[in-house]
Protein backbone atom coordinates (compact mmCIF):
# COMPACT_ATOMS: atom_id res chain seq x y z
CA UNK A 1 0.00 0.00 0.00
CA UNK A 2 2.84 2.32 0.86
CA UNK A 3 4.32 2.20 -2.59
CA UNK A 4 0.99 2.97 -4.26
CA UNK A 5 0.93 6.34 -2.59
CA UNK A 6 4.54 7.19 -3.33
CA UNK A 7 4.45 5.93 -6.90
CA UNK A 8 1.34 7.05 -8.72
CA UNK A 9 0.51 4.76 -11.57
CA UNK A 10 1.84 1.71 -9.76
CA UNK A 11 -1.01 -0.67 -9.13
CA UNK A 12 -0.40 -3.64 -6.88
CA UNK A 13 -1.23 -7.01 -8.32
CA UNK A 14 -1.13 -5.99 -11.96
CA UNK A 15 1.69 -7.72 -13.83
CA UNK A 16 4.19 -5.40 -15.47
CA UNK A 17 3.35 -6.61 -18.96
CA UNK A 18 -0.35 -5.80 -18.60
CA UNK A 19 0.54 -2.36 -17.31
CA UNK A 20 2.76 -1.64 -20.29
CA UNK A 21 0.12 -3.01 -22.65
CA UNK A 22 -2.51 -0.81 -21.02
CA UNK A 23 -0.40 2.29 -21.34
CA UNK A 24 0.47 1.46 -24.94
CA UNK A 25 -3.25 1.07 -25.57
CA UNK A 26 -3.94 4.55 -24.23
CA UNK A 27 -1.14 5.97 -26.39
CA UNK A 28 -2.39 4.20 -29.51
CA UNK A 29 -5.95 5.30 -28.76
CA UNK A 30 -5.03 8.95 -28.36
CA UNK A 31 -2.87 8.87 -31.50
CA UNK A 32 -5.68 7.32 -33.53
CA UNK A 33 -8.21 9.86 -32.28
CA UNK A 34 -5.84 12.71 -33.17
CA UNK A 35 -5.41 11.18 -36.61
CA UNK A 36 -9.19 11.02 -37.03
CA UNK A 37 -9.53 14.67 -36.01
CA UNK A 38 -6.78 15.58 -38.46
CA UNK A 39 -8.67 13.85 -41.27
CA UNK A 40 -11.84 15.68 -40.26
CA UNK A 41 -9.97 18.98 -40.27
CA UNK A 42 -8.50 18.42 -43.73
CA UNK A 43 -11.94 17.37 -45.01
CA UNK A 44 -13.38 20.63 -43.68
CA UNK A 45 -10.55 22.61 -45.26
CA UNK A 46 -11.17 20.84 -48.56
CA UNK A 47 -14.88 21.75 -48.35
CA UNK A 48 -14.35 25.40 -47.38
CA UNK A 49 -13.35 26.19 -50.93
CA UNK A 50 -15.51 29.08 -52.16
CA UNK A 51 -14.94 28.01 -55.77
CA UNK A 52 -17.25 25.44 -57.28
CA UNK A 53 -14.96 22.44 -57.94
CA UNK A 54 -17.32 21.08 -60.58
CA UNK A 55 -17.39 24.35 -62.51
CA UNK A 56 -13.60 24.50 -62.27
CA UNK A 57 -13.39 21.22 -64.20
CA UNK A 58 -16.20 21.52 -66.76
CA UNK A 59 -15.93 25.27 -67.37
CA UNK A 60 -18.70 27.86 -67.36
CA UNK A 61 -20.22 26.88 -70.72
CA UNK A 62 -20.94 23.25 -69.85
CA UNK A 63 -24.55 22.12 -70.11
CA UNK A 64 -26.55 20.76 -67.21
CA UNK A 65 -26.02 17.06 -67.99
CA UNK A 66 -22.22 17.32 -68.21
CA UNK A 67 -22.23 19.27 -64.96
CA UNK A 68 -24.29 16.63 -63.19
CA UNK A 69 -22.16 13.84 -64.58
CA UNK A 70 -18.94 15.37 -63.26
CA UNK A 71 -20.66 16.12 -59.98
CA UNK A 72 -21.56 12.44 -59.72
CA UNK A 73 -18.04 11.35 -60.62
CA UNK A 74 -16.60 13.57 -57.89
CA UNK A 75 -19.17 12.22 -55.46
CA UNK A 76 -20.37 15.73 -54.67
CA UNK A 77 -24.06 14.87 -55.19
CA UNK A 78 -24.04 12.63 -52.13
CA UNK A 79 -24.89 13.85 -48.61
CA UNK A 80 -21.96 15.23 -46.60
CA UNK A 81 -21.57 12.34 -44.13
CA UNK A 82 -21.33 9.91 -47.02
CA UNK A 83 -18.80 12.17 -48.75
CA UNK A 84 -16.79 12.17 -45.54
CA UNK A 85 -16.75 8.36 -45.43
CA UNK A 86 -15.61 8.23 -49.06
CA UNK A 87 -12.94 10.84 -48.26
CA UNK A 88 -11.72 8.80 -45.29
CA UNK A 89 -11.49 5.68 -47.43
CA UNK A 90 -9.49 7.49 -50.11
CA UNK A 91 -7.10 9.11 -47.66
CA UNK A 92 -6.46 5.90 -45.75
CA UNK A 93 -5.63 4.04 -48.96
CA UNK A 94 -3.26 6.83 -50.00
CA UNK A 95 -5.43 7.98 -52.91
CA UNK A 96 -5.04 11.78 -52.86
CA UNK A 97 -6.08 12.34 -56.49
CA UNK A 98 -4.09 14.11 -59.19
CA UNK A 99 -2.37 17.46 -58.88
CA UNK A 100 -3.59 20.17 -61.23
CA UNK A 101 -0.10 21.43 -61.97
CA UNK A 102 1.66 18.19 -62.88
CA UNK A 103 -1.37 16.01 -63.66
CA UNK A 104 0.39 13.25 -61.70
CA UNK A 105 -0.90 11.55 -58.56
CA UNK A 106 -0.17 13.92 -55.66
CA UNK A 107 1.43 11.12 -53.68
CA UNK A 108 3.99 10.48 -56.47
CA UNK A 109 4.83 14.19 -56.61
CA UNK A 110 5.38 14.36 -52.89
CA UNK A 111 7.44 11.17 -52.82
CA UNK A 112 9.66 12.63 -55.53
CA UNK A 113 10.11 16.02 -53.83
CA UNK A 114 10.30 14.98 -50.21
CA UNK A 115 13.98 13.93 -50.10
CA UNK A 116 15.02 17.50 -51.01
CA UNK A 117 13.11 18.88 -48.03
CA UNK A 118 14.32 16.08 -45.79
CA UNK A 119 17.92 16.88 -46.70
CA UNK A 120 17.39 20.60 -46.04
CA UNK A 121 15.65 20.01 -42.71
CA UNK A 122 18.27 17.49 -41.59
CA UNK A 123 21.21 19.79 -42.25
CA UNK A 124 19.23 22.57 -40.56
CA UNK A 125 18.59 20.50 -37.44
CA UNK A 126 22.28 19.57 -37.29
CA UNK A 127 23.08 23.30 -37.32
CA UNK A 128 20.26 24.08 -34.87
CA UNK A 129 21.00 21.35 -32.33
CA UNK A 130 24.75 21.51 -32.82
CA UNK A 131 24.80 25.15 -31.80
CA UNK A 132 21.61 25.43 -29.76
CA UNK A 133 22.37 22.75 -27.17
CA UNK A 134 25.90 23.94 -26.28
CA UNK A 135 24.67 27.55 -26.21
CA UNK A 136 21.84 26.62 -23.85
CA UNK A 137 24.16 24.69 -21.54
CA UNK A 138 26.73 27.50 -21.53
CA UNK A 139 24.06 30.09 -20.76
CA UNK A 140 22.73 28.05 -17.84
CA UNK A 141 26.16 27.40 -16.37
CA UNK A 142 27.06 31.08 -16.63
CA UNK A 143 23.68 32.33 -15.53
CA UNK A 144 23.50 36.11 -15.27
CA UNK A 145 26.92 36.70 -16.84
CA UNK A 146 27.46 38.34 -20.20
CA UNK A 147 27.45 35.06 -22.14
CA UNK A 148 23.97 34.32 -20.78
CA UNK A 149 22.76 37.68 -22.07
CA UNK A 150 24.36 37.09 -25.46
CA UNK A 151 22.57 33.75 -25.77
CA UNK A 152 19.33 35.40 -24.70
CA UNK A 153 19.69 38.07 -27.39
CA UNK A 154 20.50 35.43 -30.03
CA UNK A 155 17.42 33.51 -29.06
CA UNK A 156 15.17 36.58 -28.89
CA UNK A 157 16.32 37.69 -32.33
CA UNK A 158 15.65 34.18 -33.58
CA UNK A 159 12.07 34.42 -32.33
CA UNK A 160 11.60 37.85 -33.88
CA UNK A 161 13.27 37.65 -37.29
CA UNK A 162 11.17 36.96 -40.37
CA UNK A 163 13.22 34.08 -41.79
CA UNK A 164 12.28 34.73 -45.41
CA UNK A 165 13.83 38.17 -45.01
CA UNK A 166 16.95 36.83 -43.29
CA UNK A 167 17.33 34.40 -46.18
CA UNK A 168 17.14 37.24 -48.72
CA UNK A 169 19.69 39.31 -46.80
CA UNK A 170 21.92 36.22 -46.68
CA UNK A 171 21.62 35.89 -50.45
CA UNK A 172 22.51 39.55 -50.98
CA UNK A 173 25.57 39.33 -48.72
CA UNK A 174 26.99 35.84 -49.23
CA UNK A 175 25.92 35.18 -52.81
CA UNK A 176 25.77 38.54 -54.60
CA UNK A 177 28.46 40.50 -52.73
CA UNK A 178 30.90 37.87 -51.44
CA UNK A 179 30.25 35.00 -53.84
CA UNK A 180 30.90 32.41 -51.12
CA UNK A 181 27.87 30.25 -51.72
CA UNK A 182 25.71 28.87 -54.53
CA UNK A 183 22.48 30.62 -55.43
CA UNK A 184 19.06 29.10 -56.10
CA UNK A 185 18.41 25.37 -56.42
CA UNK A 186 20.05 22.33 -54.88
CA UNK A 187 23.18 22.33 -57.03
CA UNK A 188 24.76 24.36 -59.86
CA UNK A 189 22.66 23.95 -62.98
CA UNK A 190 25.28 22.07 -65.02
CA UNK A 191 25.55 19.42 -62.29
CA UNK A 192 21.83 18.61 -62.28
CA UNK A 193 21.20 14.91 -62.82
CA UNK A 194 24.91 14.05 -62.94
CA UNK A 195 24.97 11.62 -60.05
CA UNK A 196 22.67 8.59 -60.01
CA UNK A 197 19.82 9.01 -57.55
CA UNK A 198 19.94 6.43 -54.77
CA UNK A 199 18.75 8.04 -51.56
CA UNK A 200 17.40 11.24 -53.10
CA UNK A 201 19.66 13.14 -50.69
CA UNK A 202 22.11 14.89 -52.98
CA UNK A 203 24.91 15.22 -50.44
CA UNK A 204 24.88 11.47 -49.82
CA UNK A 205 24.28 10.51 -53.45
CA UNK A 206 27.27 12.53 -54.63
CA UNK A 207 29.45 10.95 -51.92
CA UNK A 208 28.28 7.48 -52.93
CA UNK A 209 29.09 8.28 -56.56
CA UNK A 210 32.46 9.63 -55.42
CA UNK A 211 31.85 12.89 -57.27
CA UNK A 212 33.62 15.56 -55.27
CA UNK A 213 32.62 18.51 -57.45
CA UNK A 214 28.92 17.78 -57.19
CA UNK A 215 29.24 17.33 -53.43
CA UNK A 216 30.97 20.69 -53.04
CA UNK A 217 28.39 22.40 -55.22
CA UNK A 218 25.52 20.80 -53.30
CA UNK A 219 27.13 21.84 -50.03
CA UNK A 220 27.55 25.42 -51.22
CA UNK A 221 23.88 25.46 -52.14
CA UNK A 222 22.48 23.92 -48.97
CA UNK A 223 24.54 25.72 -46.37
CA UNK A 224 22.75 29.09 -46.40
CA UNK A 225 19.14 27.88 -46.51
CA UNK A 226 19.93 25.26 -43.87
CA UNK A 227 21.67 27.80 -41.63
CA UNK A 228 18.81 30.28 -41.85
CA UNK A 229 16.33 27.52 -41.13
CA UNK A 230 18.55 26.21 -38.34
CA UNK A 231 18.75 29.65 -36.75
CA UNK A 232 15.05 29.59 -35.97
CA UNK A 233 15.62 26.22 -34.28
CA UNK A 234 18.61 27.53 -32.30
CA UNK A 235 16.34 30.08 -30.63
CA UNK A 236 13.97 27.44 -29.34
CA UNK A 237 16.51 24.72 -28.57
CA UNK A 238 18.92 26.97 -26.66
CA UNK A 239 16.15 28.53 -24.58
CA UNK A 240 14.67 25.19 -23.60
CA UNK A 241 18.08 23.59 -22.95
CA UNK A 242 18.96 26.51 -20.69
CA UNK A 243 15.87 26.13 -18.55
CA UNK A 244 16.19 22.31 -18.31
CA UNK A 245 19.81 22.73 -17.31
CA UNK A 246 19.08 25.39 -14.69
CA UNK A 247 16.56 23.07 -13.10
CA UNK A 248 19.24 20.37 -12.77
CA UNK A 249 21.93 22.74 -11.52
CA UNK A 250 19.68 23.76 -8.63
CA UNK A 251 19.35 20.18 -7.42
CA UNK A 252 21.11 18.95 -4.33
CA UNK A 253 22.96 16.14 -6.08
CA UNK A 254 24.95 18.77 -7.96
CA UNK A 255 26.03 20.36 -4.69
CA UNK A 256 26.94 16.91 -3.40
CA UNK A 257 28.97 16.21 -6.52
CA UNK A 258 30.76 19.52 -6.14
CA UNK A 259 31.46 18.79 -2.49
CA UNK A 260 32.95 15.44 -3.47
CA UNK A 261 35.37 17.34 -5.66
CA UNK A 262 33.97 16.42 -9.07
CA UNK A 263 35.43 18.73 -11.68
CA UNK A 264 33.22 21.44 -13.14
CA UNK A 265 33.34 19.88 -16.58
CA UNK A 266 32.36 16.48 -15.25
CA UNK A 267 29.60 17.99 -13.17
CA UNK A 268 28.11 19.72 -16.20
CA UNK A 269 28.32 16.95 -18.77
CA UNK A 270 28.41 13.72 -16.75
CA UNK A 271 25.93 14.68 -14.08
CA UNK A 272 23.59 17.48 -15.06
CA UNK A 273 23.48 17.07 -18.84
CA UNK A 274 23.03 13.33 -18.58
CA UNK A 275 19.75 13.95 -16.79
CA UNK A 276 18.35 16.28 -19.43
CA UNK A 277 19.33 14.20 -22.46
CA UNK A 278 15.82 12.85 -22.97
CA UNK A 279 14.24 16.27 -22.69
CA UNK A 280 16.74 17.70 -25.16
CA UNK A 281 16.11 14.90 -27.65
CA UNK A 282 12.38 15.55 -27.33
CA UNK A 283 12.82 19.25 -28.02
CA UNK A 284 15.04 18.54 -31.02
CA UNK A 285 12.50 16.07 -32.41
CA UNK A 286 9.70 18.59 -32.04
CA UNK A 287 11.66 21.41 -33.67
CA UNK A 288 12.54 19.08 -36.53
CA UNK A 289 8.83 19.15 -37.25
CA UNK A 290 8.53 22.92 -37.12
CA UNK A 291 11.37 23.16 -39.63
CA UNK A 292 8.83 21.95 -42.17
CA UNK A 293 6.97 25.17 -41.56
CA UNK A 294 10.05 27.27 -42.19
CA UNK A 295 10.81 25.14 -45.24
CA UNK A 296 7.72 26.52 -46.98
CA UNK A 297 9.17 30.03 -46.85
CA UNK A 298 12.83 29.11 -47.30
CA UNK A 299 12.21 26.88 -50.30
CA UNK A 300 10.29 29.69 -51.96
CA UNK A 301 13.21 32.06 -51.44
CA UNK A 302 15.89 29.64 -52.64
CA UNK A 303 13.94 27.95 -55.41
CA UNK A 304 14.54 24.71 -53.55
CA UNK A 305 12.62 22.00 -55.41
CA UNK A 306 11.04 20.43 -52.35
CA UNK A 307 7.81 19.86 -50.53
CA UNK A 308 7.45 23.45 -49.33
CA UNK A 309 7.71 24.96 -52.77
CA UNK A 310 5.22 22.40 -54.06
CA UNK A 311 2.78 23.37 -51.34
CA UNK A 312 3.21 27.09 -52.09
CA UNK A 313 2.57 26.57 -55.79
CA UNK A 314 -0.46 24.44 -55.03
CA UNK A 315 -1.78 27.18 -52.73
CA UNK A 316 -1.33 29.90 -55.32
CA UNK A 317 -3.33 28.09 -57.99
CA UNK A 318 -5.88 26.71 -55.50
CA UNK A 319 -5.06 23.06 -56.17
CA UNK A 320 -7.01 21.59 -53.25
CA UNK A 321 -6.02 17.95 -53.85
CA UNK A 322 -2.39 18.87 -53.32
CA UNK A 323 -3.14 21.24 -50.42
CA UNK A 324 -5.20 18.63 -48.57
CA UNK A 325 -2.56 15.95 -49.14
CA UNK A 326 0.30 18.21 -48.00
CA UNK A 327 -1.60 19.36 -44.90
CA UNK A 328 -2.44 15.77 -44.04
CA UNK A 329 1.15 14.62 -44.48
CA UNK A 330 2.58 17.46 -42.39
CA UNK A 331 -0.01 16.69 -39.73
CA UNK A 332 0.93 12.99 -39.76
CA UNK A 333 4.62 13.83 -39.43
CA UNK A 334 3.78 15.99 -36.42
CA UNK A 335 1.65 13.31 -34.80
CA UNK A 336 4.47 10.85 -35.47
CA UNK A 337 7.09 13.11 -33.88
CA UNK A 338 4.89 13.74 -30.86
CA UNK A 339 4.35 10.03 -30.46
CA UNK A 340 8.07 9.42 -30.82
CA UNK A 341 8.94 11.95 -28.13
CA UNK A 342 6.29 10.42 -25.87
CA UNK A 343 7.81 6.98 -26.35
CA UNK A 344 11.34 8.31 -25.82
CA UNK A 345 10.22 9.76 -22.51
CA UNK A 346 8.69 6.52 -21.42
CA UNK A 347 11.62 4.37 -22.47
CA UNK A 348 14.48 6.51 -21.24
CA UNK A 349 13.11 8.38 -18.25
CA UNK A 350 12.90 5.91 -15.38
CA UNK A 351 10.60 8.25 -13.46
CA UNK A 352 7.75 7.71 -15.92
CA UNK A 353 7.88 3.95 -15.50
Amino acid at each position, binding site marked *: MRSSTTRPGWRPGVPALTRIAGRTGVLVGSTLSTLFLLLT*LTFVIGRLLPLDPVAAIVGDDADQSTYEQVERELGLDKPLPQQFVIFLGRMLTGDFGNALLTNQPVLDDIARLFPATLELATVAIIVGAGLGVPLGVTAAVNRGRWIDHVVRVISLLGYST*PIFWLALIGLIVFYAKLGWIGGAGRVDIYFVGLVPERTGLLLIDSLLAGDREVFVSAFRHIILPASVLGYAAIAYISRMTRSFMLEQLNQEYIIAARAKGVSRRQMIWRHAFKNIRVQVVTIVALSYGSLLEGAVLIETVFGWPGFGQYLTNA*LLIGDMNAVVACTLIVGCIFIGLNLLSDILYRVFDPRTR
Partner: protein
Amino acid sequence: MSVHAWLTVETAQSEFHASLQRLYAGWRSLIRNPLGSAGLAVICLLILVAAFAPAIATHNPYQQDLTAPLLPPGGSHLLGTDELGRDIFSRLIYGSRITLMIVVLVSVIVAPIGLILGTVSGVMGGIVDIVIMRVTDLFLAFPSLILALAFVAALGPGLENAIVAIALTAWPPIARLARAETLTVRGSDYIAAVRLQGASTRRIILRHVVPMCIPSVVVRVTLNMAAIILTAAGLGFLGLGAQPPMAEWGAMVSTGRRYMLDSWWVVTMPGIAILVVSLAFNLFGDALRDVLDPRGE
Protein backbone atom coordinates in the same frame (compact mmCIF):
# COMPACT_ATOMS: atom_id res chain seq x y z
CA MET B 1 0.16 64.22 -0.38
CA SER B 2 1.75 63.49 -3.74
CA VAL B 3 0.25 61.01 -6.15
CA HIS B 4 3.25 58.73 -5.71
CA ALA B 5 2.84 58.73 -1.93
CA TRP B 6 -0.89 58.10 -2.22
CA LEU B 7 -0.23 55.15 -4.52
CA THR B 8 2.39 53.59 -2.26
CA VAL B 9 0.82 54.23 1.15
CA GLU B 10 0.87 51.21 3.50
CA THR B 11 -2.86 50.67 3.92
CA ALA B 12 -5.31 51.21 1.10
CA GLN B 13 -8.43 53.24 1.86
CA SER B 14 -10.74 51.38 -0.49
CA GLU B 15 -10.93 48.51 -2.90
CA PHE B 16 -10.44 50.93 -5.78
CA HIS B 17 -7.41 52.45 -4.06
CA ALA B 18 -5.93 48.99 -3.59
CA SER B 19 -6.32 47.98 -7.23
CA LEU B 20 -4.80 51.28 -8.33
CA GLN B 21 -1.87 50.60 -6.03
CA ARG B 22 -1.43 47.15 -7.49
CA LEU B 23 -1.43 48.56 -11.01
CA TYR B 24 1.10 51.21 -9.98
CA ALA B 25 3.42 48.65 -8.39
CA GLY B 26 3.21 46.49 -11.51
CA TRP B 27 3.92 49.50 -13.69
CA ARG B 28 6.96 50.43 -11.61
CA SER B 29 8.49 46.98 -11.82
CA LEU B 30 7.72 46.91 -15.54
CA ILE B 31 9.58 50.13 -16.30
CA ARG B 32 12.50 49.02 -14.14
CA ASN B 33 13.15 46.36 -16.80
CA PRO B 34 15.10 48.26 -19.51
CA LEU B 35 14.46 45.79 -22.34
CA GLY B 36 10.78 45.58 -21.50
CA SER B 37 10.50 49.39 -21.44
CA ALA B 38 12.26 49.59 -24.79
CA GLY B 39 9.73 47.12 -26.20
CA LEU B 40 6.86 49.13 -24.75
CA ALA B 41 8.32 52.34 -26.20
CA VAL B 42 8.51 50.81 -29.67
CA ILE B 43 4.92 49.57 -29.39
CA CYS B 44 3.73 53.04 -28.32
CA LEU B 45 5.69 54.54 -31.20
CA LEU B 46 4.05 52.06 -33.59
CA ILE B 47 0.61 53.11 -32.35
CA LEU B 48 1.45 56.80 -32.71
CA VAL B 49 2.89 56.30 -36.18
CA ALA B 50 -0.19 54.38 -37.26
CA ALA B 51 -2.48 57.05 -35.84
CA PHE B 52 -0.67 59.99 -37.39
CA ALA B 53 0.50 58.29 -40.60
CA PRO B 54 -0.70 61.08 -42.93
CA ALA B 55 1.23 63.69 -40.93
CA ILE B 56 4.45 61.65 -40.71
CA ALA B 57 4.64 60.28 -44.23
CA THR B 58 6.60 62.50 -46.60
CA HIS B 59 4.91 61.20 -49.74
CA ASN B 60 1.70 59.55 -50.81
CA PRO B 61 2.44 55.81 -50.27
CA TYR B 62 0.53 54.79 -53.39
CA GLN B 63 1.75 57.60 -55.68
CA GLN B 64 3.85 56.09 -58.46
CA ASP B 65 6.65 58.07 -60.03
CA LEU B 66 8.01 56.10 -62.96
CA THR B 67 10.72 58.70 -63.56
CA ALA B 68 12.30 57.89 -60.18
CA PRO B 69 12.31 54.09 -59.67
CA LEU B 70 14.71 52.33 -57.27
CA LEU B 71 16.37 55.49 -55.95
CA PRO B 72 18.83 54.77 -53.11
CA PRO B 73 18.13 56.14 -49.61
CA GLY B 74 18.88 59.82 -49.14
CA GLY B 75 17.67 63.11 -50.52
CA SER B 76 13.93 63.67 -50.53
CA HIS B 77 13.32 59.91 -50.28
CA LEU B 78 14.54 59.01 -46.80
CA LEU B 79 14.65 55.24 -47.41
CA GLY B 80 14.72 55.32 -51.21
CA THR B 81 12.01 54.33 -53.66
CA ASP B 82 10.71 50.99 -54.92
CA GLU B 83 10.40 49.70 -58.48
CA LEU B 84 7.41 51.96 -59.19
CA GLY B 85 9.03 55.04 -57.71
CA ARG B 86 6.92 54.93 -54.55
CA ASP B 87 8.51 56.32 -51.40
CA ILE B 88 9.52 53.39 -49.16
CA PHE B 89 9.52 55.42 -45.94
CA SER B 90 5.93 56.53 -46.49
CA ARG B 91 4.89 52.99 -47.37
CA LEU B 92 6.45 51.68 -44.16
CA ILE B 93 4.60 54.37 -42.18
CA TYR B 94 1.26 53.40 -43.70
CA GLY B 95 2.16 49.71 -43.42
CA SER B 96 2.22 50.09 -39.63
CA ARG B 97 -1.56 50.55 -39.80
CA ILE B 98 -2.00 47.18 -41.49
CA THR B 99 0.34 45.42 -39.05
CA LEU B 100 -1.40 46.96 -36.08
CA MET B 101 -4.81 46.10 -37.48
CA ILE B 102 -3.83 42.44 -37.98
CA VAL B 103 -2.41 42.16 -34.46
CA VAL B 104 -5.38 43.83 -32.79
CA LEU B 105 -8.06 41.99 -34.77
CA VAL B 106 -6.46 38.57 -34.30
CA SER B 107 -5.98 39.17 -30.57
CA VAL B 108 -9.54 40.44 -30.14
CA ILE B 109 -10.91 37.35 -31.88
CA VAL B 110 -8.57 34.86 -30.27
CA ALA B 111 -8.43 35.90 -26.60
CA PRO B 112 -12.16 35.47 -25.76
CA ILE B 113 -12.40 32.22 -27.74
CA GLY B 114 -9.40 30.71 -26.01
CA LEU B 115 -10.52 31.98 -22.63
CA ILE B 116 -14.03 30.57 -22.89
CA LEU B 117 -12.97 27.21 -24.36
CA GLY B 118 -10.25 26.78 -21.74
CA THR B 119 -12.35 27.73 -18.72
CA VAL B 120 -15.39 25.72 -19.85
CA SER B 121 -13.13 22.75 -20.45
CA GLY B 122 -11.51 23.10 -17.04
CA VAL B 123 -14.70 23.65 -15.04
CA MET B 124 -16.92 21.11 -16.77
CA GLY B 125 -14.34 18.32 -17.02
CA GLY B 126 -15.38 14.91 -18.30
CA ILE B 127 -16.29 14.38 -21.92
CA VAL B 128 -16.48 18.13 -22.70
CA ASP B 129 -12.93 18.53 -21.45
CA ILE B 130 -11.66 15.55 -23.43
CA VAL B 131 -13.23 16.70 -26.70
CA ILE B 132 -12.11 20.34 -26.40
CA MET B 133 -8.58 19.40 -25.40
CA ARG B 134 -8.19 16.84 -28.19
CA VAL B 135 -9.13 19.47 -30.75
CA THR B 136 -6.83 21.98 -29.04
CA ASP B 137 -3.94 19.52 -29.07
CA LEU B 138 -4.43 18.86 -32.75
CA PHE B 139 -4.28 22.58 -33.60
CA LEU B 140 -1.41 23.07 -31.18
CA ALA B 141 0.64 20.28 -32.70
CA PHE B 142 0.22 21.72 -36.18
CA PRO B 143 2.75 24.29 -37.42
CA SER B 144 0.65 27.46 -37.44
CA LEU B 145 1.89 28.79 -40.76
CA ILE B 146 1.01 25.62 -42.65
CA LEU B 147 -2.45 25.48 -41.11
CA ALA B 148 -2.99 29.17 -41.85
CA LEU B 149 -1.82 28.55 -45.41
CA ALA B 150 -4.32 25.74 -45.84
CA PHE B 151 -7.14 27.91 -44.51
CA VAL B 152 -6.16 30.82 -46.74
CA ALA B 153 -6.00 28.50 -49.73
CA ALA B 154 -9.52 27.36 -48.97
CA LEU B 155 -10.93 30.81 -48.18
CA GLY B 156 -9.04 32.65 -50.91
CA PRO B 157 -6.11 35.07 -50.59
CA GLY B 158 -6.58 38.50 -49.05
CA LEU B 159 -6.05 40.45 -45.87
CA GLU B 160 -9.39 39.63 -44.20
CA ASN B 161 -9.06 35.92 -44.91
CA ALA B 162 -5.48 35.98 -43.67
CA ILE B 163 -6.70 37.47 -40.39
CA VAL B 164 -9.38 34.79 -40.06
CA ALA B 165 -6.86 32.06 -40.91
CA ILE B 166 -4.33 33.31 -38.35
CA ALA B 167 -7.06 33.57 -35.73
CA LEU B 168 -8.11 29.99 -36.45
CA THR B 169 -4.59 28.82 -35.69
CA ALA B 170 -3.77 31.12 -32.75
CA TRP B 171 -6.41 30.22 -30.14
CA PRO B 172 -5.09 26.84 -28.90
CA PRO B 173 -2.22 28.02 -26.66
CA ILE B 174 -4.62 30.40 -24.95
CA ALA B 175 -7.24 27.71 -24.41
CA ARG B 176 -4.56 25.41 -23.00
CA LEU B 177 -3.33 28.09 -20.63
CA ALA B 178 -6.81 29.12 -19.50
CA ARG B 179 -7.60 25.49 -18.75
CA ALA B 180 -4.42 25.04 -16.73
CA GLU B 181 -5.24 28.18 -14.71
CA THR B 182 -8.80 26.96 -14.24
CA LEU B 183 -7.61 23.63 -12.88
CA THR B 184 -5.58 25.40 -10.20
CA VAL B 185 -8.58 27.37 -8.92
CA ARG B 186 -11.30 24.81 -9.58
CA GLY B 187 -10.79 22.98 -6.32
CA SER B 188 -10.36 26.06 -4.14
CA ASP B 189 -12.66 26.90 -1.27
CA TYR B 190 -14.09 30.08 -2.74
CA ILE B 191 -15.36 28.19 -5.78
CA ALA B 192 -16.91 25.58 -3.47
CA ALA B 193 -18.47 28.43 -1.49
CA VAL B 194 -20.10 30.02 -4.56
CA ARG B 195 -21.23 26.64 -5.73
CA LEU B 196 -22.89 25.98 -2.37
CA GLN B 197 -24.63 29.34 -2.63
CA GLY B 198 -26.28 27.91 -5.72
CA ALA B 199 -24.37 29.74 -8.45
CA SER B 200 -24.83 28.28 -11.91
CA THR B 201 -21.90 26.84 -13.83
CA ARG B 202 -22.12 29.78 -16.21
CA ARG B 203 -21.89 32.25 -13.37
CA ILE B 204 -18.96 30.40 -11.81
CA ILE B 205 -17.08 30.44 -15.10
CA LEU B 206 -17.77 34.05 -16.04
CA ARG B 207 -17.63 35.74 -12.65
CA HIS B 208 -15.19 33.62 -10.64
CA VAL B 209 -12.90 31.67 -12.95
CA VAL B 210 -12.39 33.92 -15.97
CA PRO B 211 -11.06 36.88 -13.92
CA MET B 212 -8.39 34.60 -12.41
CA CYS B 213 -7.19 33.60 -15.86
CA ILE B 214 -7.00 37.07 -17.37
CA PRO B 215 -3.45 38.06 -16.28
CA SER B 216 -1.76 35.01 -17.78
CA VAL B 217 -3.94 35.21 -20.89
CA VAL B 218 -2.88 38.82 -21.38
CA VAL B 219 0.77 37.79 -21.21
CA ARG B 220 0.23 34.93 -23.59
CA VAL B 221 -1.62 37.13 -26.08
CA THR B 222 1.17 39.72 -25.95
CA LEU B 223 3.83 37.07 -26.54
CA ASN B 224 1.67 35.69 -29.34
CA MET B 225 1.59 39.04 -31.09
CA ALA B 226 5.16 38.62 -32.35
CA ALA B 227 4.23 35.26 -33.84
CA ILE B 228 1.09 36.77 -35.37
CA ILE B 229 3.16 39.51 -37.01
CA LEU B 230 5.61 36.97 -38.42
CA THR B 231 2.86 34.67 -39.71
CA ALA B 232 1.04 37.60 -41.33
CA ALA B 233 4.27 38.80 -42.93
CA GLY B 234 4.96 35.26 -44.16
CA LEU B 235 1.50 35.05 -45.71
CA GLY B 236 2.02 38.45 -47.33
CA PHE B 237 5.42 37.33 -48.59
CA LEU B 238 3.94 34.22 -50.21
CA GLY B 239 1.31 36.40 -51.89
CA LEU B 240 -1.55 34.95 -49.84
CA GLY B 241 -2.05 37.79 -47.36
CA ALA B 242 -2.50 41.47 -48.12
CA GLN B 243 -2.58 42.00 -51.88
CA PRO B 244 -0.69 44.65 -53.86
CA PRO B 245 -0.65 47.62 -53.99
CA MET B 246 -1.33 47.50 -50.24
CA ALA B 247 1.70 48.66 -48.26
CA GLU B 248 2.00 45.49 -46.17
CA TRP B 249 5.55 44.85 -45.00
CA GLY B 250 5.74 41.15 -45.94
CA ALA B 251 4.32 41.83 -49.39
CA MET B 252 6.82 44.68 -49.81
CA VAL B 253 9.70 42.29 -49.13
CA SER B 254 8.20 39.89 -51.65
CA THR B 255 7.91 42.42 -54.51
CA GLY B 256 11.34 43.86 -53.70
CA ARG B 257 12.88 40.42 -54.19
CA ARG B 258 13.26 40.84 -57.94
CA TYR B 259 15.35 43.99 -57.58
CA MET B 260 17.28 43.15 -54.44
CA LEU B 261 20.65 42.34 -56.01
CA ASP B 262 21.03 45.90 -57.28
CA SER B 263 18.74 47.71 -54.86
CA TRP B 264 19.23 46.18 -51.43
CA TRP B 265 17.07 48.77 -49.64
CA VAL B 266 13.86 47.57 -51.26
CA VAL B 267 13.86 44.31 -49.27
CA THR B 268 15.98 45.40 -46.33
CA MET B 269 13.82 48.26 -45.01
CA PRO B 270 10.45 46.48 -44.66
CA GLY B 271 12.24 43.47 -43.15
CA ILE B 272 13.83 45.66 -40.49
CA ALA B 273 10.41 47.10 -39.70
CA ILE B 274 8.98 43.59 -39.17
CA LEU B 275 11.99 42.58 -37.06
CA VAL B 276 11.87 45.67 -34.82
CA VAL B 277 8.16 45.43 -34.16
CA SER B 278 8.10 41.70 -33.45
CA LEU B 279 11.19 42.05 -31.24
CA ALA B 280 9.41 44.82 -29.34
CA PHE B 281 6.38 42.61 -28.70
CA ASN B 282 8.64 39.76 -27.55
CA LEU B 283 10.56 42.01 -25.15
CA PHE B 284 7.42 43.61 -23.77
CA GLY B 285 5.72 40.24 -23.42
CA ASP B 286 8.69 38.84 -21.50
CA ALA B 287 8.71 41.81 -19.14
CA LEU B 288 4.95 41.60 -18.66
CA ARG B 289 5.28 37.95 -17.75
CA ASP B 290 7.82 38.77 -15.07
CA VAL B 291 5.45 41.33 -13.57
CA LEU B 292 2.16 39.44 -13.78
CA ASP B 293 3.35 35.90 -13.36
CA PRO B 294 6.25 35.78 -10.92
CA ARG B 295 6.10 31.99 -10.78
CA GLY B 296 7.67 31.74 -14.22
CA GLU B 297 11.41 31.70 -14.51
